[in-house]
């Protein structure tokens, strides 16, 4: 009898050591770092259900062992099984997509959702506030990657062209009805993707490619000058090749333990024709560009001076001023403008870019944001 119990006891002890070693190792590491063990946090708050849930969540997030193992587990799932985890969708031909964005395209809006109406109301209100100051507003919704390239999500979408979400179409209709000027990049990119020599979006990233940036800048410049809102300036800019290698944000989000591949991105940097200096924003410019990471990419990111604002300035032959708020194109950037209303001084045109997925996923939603009254000299 004892001989049959020995292996059982051994297995039980091994199991207990396995599950016991994780918290003990965690506590030892925390003590070695001079910190209070995370496990003791449970004694510092009332044992209510929300506190205990938060405690459990905090323990999971703080676990060193989980931190070591998670990237390798994700690596095996991604490289071996093509699983992108909770946020990344692995598409065709090596293209990655932001899963919540795709869900926004394919899922029905939540029952009772008024996001489209709220967004339209906030945009119209912002347009009216700018109009009262004598400024023009041009809205530039940046299409989701999956709206322009659905065929890389699923082969069944081949031949569809561009498929903006139902909410996006409703928003564009409401804005048109309210007389808001919109640069329709959906139609432009749908046509452009068949003619372009390079894709308009990056394969590993949620953002547009240099080709997409330049196409969008050309349309916006044509719209502004075509409406007579602005005269073309006199500053000549040139483009020079500035290719970079980039790890896309969708790949980066997987937090893999090693970089699988970098994407070569054929950027074109905008430089002044007279002295060859890279493009720089000008606070006294007549155009203010508000937006999110679609403005940041290639601008403050590598290689610099190759983003949307730089190419818009090249088209307009005059510098512009940018206010960029990563992931905050819907509302945070307007709030930041409220904190810094002096940025509106001397402006004639405001361009407001936000990504399509913000219609459902905007940080802080779509409240109306009241600009402070203009300062009178």
């Amino acid at each position, binding site marked *: 009898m004892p001989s049959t119990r020995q292996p059982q006891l051994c297995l039980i002890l091994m199991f207990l050591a396995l599950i016991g070693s994780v918290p003990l190792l965690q506590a030892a590491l925390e003590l070695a770092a001079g*910190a209070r*063990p995370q496990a*003791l946090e449970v004694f510092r708050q009332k044992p209510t259900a929300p506190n205990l849930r938060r405690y459990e969540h905090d323990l999971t997030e703080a676990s060193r062992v989980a931190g070591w193992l998670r990237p390798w587990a994700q690596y095996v799932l991604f490289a071996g099984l093509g699983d992108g985890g909770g946020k990344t969708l692995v598409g065709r031909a090596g293209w990655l997509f*932001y899963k919540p964005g795709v869900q926004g395209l394919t899922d029905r809006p939540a029952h009772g959702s008024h996001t489209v109406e709220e967004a339209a109301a906030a945009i119209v209100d912002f347009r009216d506030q700018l109009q009262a100051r004598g400024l023009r507003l041009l809205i530039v919704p940046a299409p989701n990657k999956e709206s322009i390239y659905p065929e890389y999500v699923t082969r069944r979408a081949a031949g569809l062209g561009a498929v903006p979400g139902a909410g996006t179409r409703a928003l564009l209709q409401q804005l048109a009805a309210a007389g808001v000027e919109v640069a329709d990049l959906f139609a432009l990119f749908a046509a452009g993707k068949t003619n372009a020599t390079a894709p308009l979006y990056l394969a590993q990233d949620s953002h547009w490619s240099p080709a997409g940036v330049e196409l969008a800048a050309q349309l916006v410049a044509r719209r502004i000058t075509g409406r007579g809102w602005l005269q073309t300036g006199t500053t000549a800019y040139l483009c020079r090749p500035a290719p970079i290698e980039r790890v896309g944000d969708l790949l980066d989000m997987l937090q893999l333990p090693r970089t699988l591949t970098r994407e070569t991105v054929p950027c074109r940097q905008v430089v002044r024709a007279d002295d060859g200096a890279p493009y720089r924003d000008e606070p006294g410019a007549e155009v203010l560009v508000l937006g999110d990471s679609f403005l940041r990419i290639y601008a403050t990111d590598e290689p610099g001076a190759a983003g949307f604002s730089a190419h818009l300035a090249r088209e307009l032959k005059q510098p512009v001023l940018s206010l960029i708020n990563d*992931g905050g194109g819907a509302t945070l950037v307007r709030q930041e403008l409220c904190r810094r209303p002096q940025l509106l001084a001397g402006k004639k045109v405001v361009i407001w870019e936000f990504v399509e997925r913000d219609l459902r996923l905007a940080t802080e939603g779509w409240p109306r944001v009241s600009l402070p009254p203009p300062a009178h000299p």
Partner: protein
Amino acid sequence: MRVMYALSVVLLTGACSDLARSPAHAGADAQVQTLGTVEVTARLVEVPEGAIFKRDLYDYATILKYEVVTVHRGALKQGAVIYVGQYNPWKPRAAAADRKAPNLGGNARQFHAGRLQRLALATPLDDFFMGGLVDKYFGRRAGPAYWAVWTNDAD
């Protein structure tokens, strides 16, 4: 069993040693006492719903509301309510610094309402951080927002 017992004693001793510190020195270290222009021990008044959560693609700072308990440096007054920008507050302070917000730190790991923290602050926030700012008090607060350079637990 002995190992477990010894470790329990170590853990409890560690916990009690924190509690035994005097309030004036709670959370003090070289960084919190020298960085920024203002140093306070303050109580986190609340964490508004949706103010702190893990972000997928982007980095944000979040404005949090504190009540000043002790002023160590600077011109603030005891009992004052201040609004402080904490960068990516879902991360432990020791892991929060990055290229967009360098030189941040501290031993605080989470932000829970009611906690006392010792903060080294800089102001105005816009001079130190130009990225996304989640401000649940937007339009409802007055005065400058501070930028949390160093945050230590102090309770």
